[in-house]
């Protein structure tokens, strides 16, 4: 007991630094050699720390209690309650708004998807109905494009090979030429070439997208005007009437013969005829003439799903178009006179006409 007391006093002195240097060294040595004493020291330290901690904590506690006592608790509580009430209200409001928003979103999604499904269904239905038509439309577009003769590959093309080619024919002696718009659309420059191999530069002066027609004007000083041998027939022709065309599906002019097979064009287009005539890419823009040598139409395209079916814009429509052109650009009205080809046989007709049928070359 006494030893314990002595030890504890020694430990206390040691920890509080009251020992002399020698004493401390001796005690350190003792701690090292005797683990029991070392443990006692550590325990003592821990105890003192605990006591210190407790004292500070109690002090803090009493300080806090004092401060707490000074607080106006009832006011604070009231304020807190009020703030909570307000927060609750906004929270409820916010929750309501969130719910409403969620409901609205669901409603919106449902209705949109319903609409989408319905529309999709109806479109499926209508495409099922229209499929034929659309396919035909696509085809006609493709065929129309295909009618533009791609003469890029043709190495023996005279002067400059154009990127695309089509056919055109004169509608006046002074250099106005009608062709298809799809032949010249997007062109950088246009050249026309007649059967004699003479090429002239031309510019597009008028275009009509709906009927796919374009009017070119030869802008070349070397061009000499000639009187037209044929006329534009203002009335429609009768069904079954024999017609012929000339065009440039190759570099050489090609003659084709056929008959008017229907009075309307593709998809009931009243401005065009259906013609049963062999046409090939490059025939686009070629003239369609009747037996008397009058222009009755302009070849525009063919139907790929059926053999030998081509379409031609009616000459009446072309005439209306020419009349609508701005006055300063209008070609001389030569097309109304009587055709000089009437009564001639076909070979002579062709001989006369071929000079006025041009190969249209387009660079872009």
């Amino acid at each position, binding site marked *: 007991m006494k030893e314990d007391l002595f030890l504890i006093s020694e430990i206390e002195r040691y920890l509080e630094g009251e020992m002399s240097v020698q004493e401390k060294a001796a005690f350190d040595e003792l701690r090292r050699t005797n683990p029991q004493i070392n443990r006692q020291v550590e325990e003592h330290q821990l*105890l003192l720390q*605990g006591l210190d901690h407790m004292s*500070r904590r109690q002090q*803090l506690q009493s300080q806090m209690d004092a401060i707490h006592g000074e*607080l106006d608790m009832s006011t604070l509580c009231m*304020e807190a309650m009020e703030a909570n009430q307000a927060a609750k209200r906004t929270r409820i409001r916010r929750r309501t708004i969130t719910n409403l928003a969620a409901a609205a979103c669901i409603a919106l999604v449902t209705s949109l998807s319903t609409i989408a499904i319905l529309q999709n269904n109806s479109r499926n239905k209508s495409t099922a109905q229209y499929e034929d038509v659309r396919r035909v439309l696509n085809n006609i577009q493709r065929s129309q494009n295909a009618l533009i003769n791609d003469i890029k590959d043709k190495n023996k093309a005279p002067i400059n090979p154009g990127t695309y080619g089509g056919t055109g024919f004169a509608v006046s002696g002074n250099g106005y030429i009608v062709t298809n718009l799809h032949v010249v659309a997007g062109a950088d420059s246009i050249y026309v070439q007649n059967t004699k191999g003479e090429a002239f530069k031309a510019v597009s002066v008028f275009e009509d997208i709906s009927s796919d027609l374009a009017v070119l004007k030869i802008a070349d000083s070397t061009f000499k005007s000639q009187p037209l041998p044929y006329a534009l027939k203002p009335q429609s022709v009768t069904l079954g009437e024999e017609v012929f065309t000339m065009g440039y599906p190759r570099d050489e002019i090609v003659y084709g013969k056929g008959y008017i097979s229907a009075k309307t064009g593709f998809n009931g287009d009243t401005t065009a005829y259906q013609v049963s005539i062999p046409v090939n890419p490059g025939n686009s823009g070629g003239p369609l003439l009747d037996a008397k040598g009058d222009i009755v139409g302009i070849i525009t395209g063919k139907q790929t799903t059926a053999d030998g079916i081509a379409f031609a814009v009616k000459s009446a429509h072309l005439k209306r178009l020419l009349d609508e052109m701005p006055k300063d650009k209008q070609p001389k009205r030569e097309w109304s006179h009587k055709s000089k080809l009437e009564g001639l046989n076909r070979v002579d007709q062709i001989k006369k006409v071929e000079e006025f049928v041009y190969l249209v070359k387009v660079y872009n």
Partner: protein
Amino acid sequence: MKHIQDIGKDKDLLLGLAKSDGKSLEIIYSENFPVVLRMILQHNGSEDDAKDVFQEAIIVLYEKVCGGDFTLTSRLKTFLYSVCRHLWLKKLQSNHGLYALPEELEETIPATDIIDEHQAKDEQYKIMEHAMGSLGQPCKTILEDYYLHKKSMQEIAEKFGYTNSENAKTQKYKCLMRLKKIFFDKYNTSL
């Protein structure tokens, strides 16, 4: 700018708290208590709960600050709020089983580690308090006077009527040995 000012102010307050400066404590207390009170009241607590939880949080803070290795990574307000929130959540869970505090917009920081650390210290404190409580008079007062109130042995000898300070010292050592026994009996079993 305001944020930086706040942090500067918070640092000053913490320094004050470490030095047991009553003024700093008072500022911290009065500025942060209302928020905590509000939070506790909102979540099924009473005024007294708020007081307990908040004071515990202050103790946590104090221990941290005294430990010296504490750097405030957020605003003091956020720290105290987070600690209180966690303490209260823990209390609610132990009392009512599972109870989750609804997530709110207030900024909080993870305080689980801080609280776990605090609980170890708190355990020690409770054991010490218990040991002191079961020590009996006059031992308790002698030890309190010497170790807590830092009175000299001379004063203690006079107060308790010992003939000299040596006698008082012997008595103190005896008391200390008893305290040590009670404390470590409990401490070692609790570990």
